[in-house]
């Protein structure tokens, strides 16, 4: 089975939110309430238990290359956020019930018939993706349309996206395509175009990569995402050390008192 991935090229995103809706339709998710946030045109706020694709709107200083033609004009960029399906996934590592599994396509899938709502996964995701639905009691996130992939179909969001900003396919091919695209964008004068795929951190790379302009932080993509369980080793060592010190200390105390 090939490992599939998303490449979300935000330079092609027109901020239409077809991805948000197509995902909700396919996965029969509810709405997030009807509140106007005033955050540009973004009223869904963030990825969560009932929003698995979320378009971020960034009104910022002008970016040269395209969009806006004078230094004092605004620019507006959009990027569709999603579960990163990390190579080493914090949620998967933390899940104590075996609800979260790695599929044959390399995606990270929460089995709703196993999840007990402990929410360990929620605090372990470096991107704040997975969220518990307090009415339902379970944790939910993007399934990478596992049901669709099983029949060779592309995820609902990728299929809907009007400008193919969301690309779906073989991960190696997409990594190559991303490189080519970033070079192309830079040659057009967009020096700040970059690929977000943190392979050096404990996450060890994403199965949902992003091409963005400017600082990826603006699009909810943190600079050094770490899987919390990466600290487990040192945590165990520290615990072991602490335990050892305590035992030794206890021994000394007893031996000392025994001698006396």
């Amino acid at each position, binding site marked *: 089975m090939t490992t599939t991935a998303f490449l979300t090229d935000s330079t092609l995103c027109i901020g239409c939110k077809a991805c948000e809706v197509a995902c909700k339709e396919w996965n029969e998710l509810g709405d997030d309430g009807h509140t106007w946030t005033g955050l540009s045109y973004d009223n*869904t706020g963030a990825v969560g238990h009932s929003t698995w694709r979320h378009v971020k709107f960034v009104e910022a200083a002008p970016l040269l290359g395209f*969009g806006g033609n004078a230094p004092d004009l605004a620019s507006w960029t959009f990027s569709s956020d999603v579960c990163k399906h990390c190579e080493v996934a914090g949620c998967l590592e933390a899940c104590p019930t075996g609800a979260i599994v790695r599929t044959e396509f390399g995606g990270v899938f929460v089995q709703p018939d196993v999840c007990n709502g402990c929410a360990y996964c929620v605090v372990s995701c470096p991107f704040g993706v997975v969220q518990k639905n307090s009415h339902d009691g379970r944790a939910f996130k993007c399934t990478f349309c596992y049901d669709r992939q099983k029949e060779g179909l592309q995820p609902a969001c990728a299929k809907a996206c*009007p400008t193919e900003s969301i690309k779906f396919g073989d991960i190696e091919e997409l990594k190559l395509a991303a490189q080519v695209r970033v070079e192309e964008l830079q040659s057009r004068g967009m020096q700040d175009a970059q690929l977000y795929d943190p392979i050096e951190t404990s996450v060890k790379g994403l199965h949902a990569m992003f091409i963005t302009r400017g600082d990826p932080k603006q699009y909810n993509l943190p600079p050094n995402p770490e899987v919390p369980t990466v600290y487990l080793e040192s945590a165990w060592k520290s615990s072991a050390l602490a335990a050892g010190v305590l035992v030794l200390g206890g021994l000394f105390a007893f031996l000392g008192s025994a001698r006396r």
Partner: protein
Amino acid sequence: MPGLGTSFGRGGATTAQSDLANADAILIMGSSMAENHPVGFQWVMEAREKNGATIIHVDPRFTRTSAMADIWLPLRAGTDILFLGGLINYVLTNDKMFREYVLPYTNLSTVICEGFRDTEDLDGVFSGWDDIKKRYDHSTWQYQNVETLGYDEGHYGGGGHGKEGTGTSHPNGCERDETLQHPRCVYQILKKHFARYTPEMVEQGSGIPKEQFLKVAEAFTSASGPDKTAAICYSVGWTQHSKGVQIIRSAAILQLLLGNIGRPGGGILALRGHASIQGSTDIPTLYDILPGYLHMPFFKSGHNNFNDYILRHKSRKGLWFNYDTYFINLMKAWYGENARADNDWCFDLIPKLTGDHSHFGYWLDMREGKMDGLFVLGQNPAVGASNGRLERTALSKLKWLVVRDMVETETASFWYNSPEIERGELKTEDIATEVFLFPAAGTAEKAGTFTNTQRLLQFRELAIHPPGDARSDSWFMYHLGRRLKKKVEGKVGKRYEPLQKLQWNYKTEGPLKEPSISQVLKEISGWDLTSGKQVSGYKELKGDGTTASGCWIYSGVFPAENLNKALIRSPKNYLGHGWGFSWPNDVRIIYNRCSARPDGRPWSERKKLVWWDEEKQEWTGIDTPDFDKKKRPDYQPPEDATGTNGLAGDKPFILNADGVGWVFAPTGLMDGPLPTHYEPLESPLHNPLYRSHDTNPPEDKKIRPDNEYAPIGDGRFPYVLSTYRLTEHHTAGGMSRTLPHLAELQPELFCELSPELAADLELVHGEWACIYTPRSVIEARVMVTPRMRPLWVQGRTVHQVGLPYHWGYNGLVKGDVTNDLLPISEEPNVRIMETKALVCDIVPGRRATGPEALKQWKAHKEEAA
């Protein structure tokens, strides 16, 4: 539509959406295409990726489209003609015309008659202006040596949707000067008309900085010539103006001068807003036309007969030579064997028009209590039409109202929860209107065709039956008609004949007894009455009563008993041949004779589309030729030849009687043969060009106490207001504010304004503001954004405020009705209202509720400037 119709011959987009990928430059104006036609916009993006095309967006706001463009120009709303005229001036001044195309294919060299005077001569009007009747006499706009029948009195009440066939009845007699030196040739008139539309004037009037204008002018006009083409995309940002038709005319002139019409990657893509709005003008539920852009007959005493009607509209040359044939075929489709030559094809049975029977025309009668009943089928005027207060109050004067929709729209519920009820202006228990609200079927629940923005008919298969008592509109009309036919059985009298003779024998299908949609589509496509077989296209239609077709331009969609071309789904090429049926005749890029030189060779390898095959002696290519297949490029017509035989082999615009694109439009338009900048009906500024005429002279403002206007420069309303759409919602909201997944994307009405204006008025982002106009007051959330910019125009700062219009008082998410702020106005040709440029005031705080709201609004109106 008349903008494109008079210029080229047909009122529809000239190209296919996928063809935009071939453009070398694309100008998007009067549209935020990425927001309102997002899937179509993929082709614009592809033009950049494939061709390195420059994408230009000109708009009062920096929208999601501007974010994707290479260049965005901020524009004062309502100054589109200044900008486009500036581009025309740039082309003429810098010799950017594609001469080899323009000379043979347009009327640039045609000489206009001696009596013609331009707006430059008469301070803002053309010759023939009657200031008392407020309309033009077109006789001085005609070609030299060409007679015209002129316009009837009745026509002035009428619409401009139909194509005029007269006026150039002897085009071979018209004078041309290929050197373009004659002082009255179109070229010289054009030069003079646009002489003052300099980059400086553009900056002064519209606020676009001169250097930026020149940058765009150069980028766009350089994408022209044998090897390059550029396309223009527009939508209601151009049409919903008091001079909307003329704005489109400006674009048409520009594209003709640059040689972009009928060529790949060129053309004008009219982006229509609804799934089948193109269809609803082709097979029109419009008052002034019949299917296929035939005219509804106007009552003219003494000339109220078939022969005079045909004489009025038939032309000697070009495709409209067959006007009578198309009309006869329609009558045969409607009345069958009852329509015969000896009764003038039942001409007497169809109603004659006597005035303005358009939406606003009859709505004002409704307001005065003169109407009995109204059918509202899939429209929501209580939210979607201008001057919501007037619209809804008028509904309360009806005896009966029938609304058909999928949800309870604001139109259906006006009698218990509209703002007028809330404010106490209307009381439910005093409203006599009987209301019927029928549940309607959704598109997956009925079979039928839509015609999309690129003239493509696509048939939808039935998936499931509608729930409960929901039915399709064909079911409704068919069974209503059946009942009415029963009422006239056995009755005697001329008034009963139309219904008695109407052919209404549709087979019904399925458990719900739906009328057979295939049967209706076959009727539209046309058949031979003697053989019973379908015809293959409009060329087979005859004027002797042996054929029938409900809409000649759609003829050929169902060319054989079991062949529904609107349903075929095997696309063969990028233009989409093999997928659906594009009218006319499955041509995808119309006027494509222009894609070849006068001698028939392509202009270039890169831009070839249709060309002459000398061996096969026929036109061939990637597209279906929009031309007589066998007509040689060097064909010269004999003097007395008629129809398309009367047009030479290098005359691509076969619906125009002289076969050429009209840079100058001698007939067909009520407000001038050339576009002229006028201010919007409400503006903070006077017309920088003409002192005597601020606004479009023949525009009908329908001024009345409940439809007041602010005079130019009114200090009570100092800001420009523009209304628009968002991706997340659809029109009046019945199909989006009722759906949880869309409602959450844009839950509240908001206004957009610049940080500078917010600071001036102490408006705070996220809080509320009241927006006032002479018609009403509404409240909206405040969105302060640098995407809105103050403009420097005529020596002062002009601020613009933006408002989307999707909200109403029903649905999951509610809000005030933006259209309550707008006046009813009628553009002179098609009677469309001006929504894109008006004036307003904006004040922090919430709107009062109940009767207090009225007092709040009146107090604001009455305060001194």
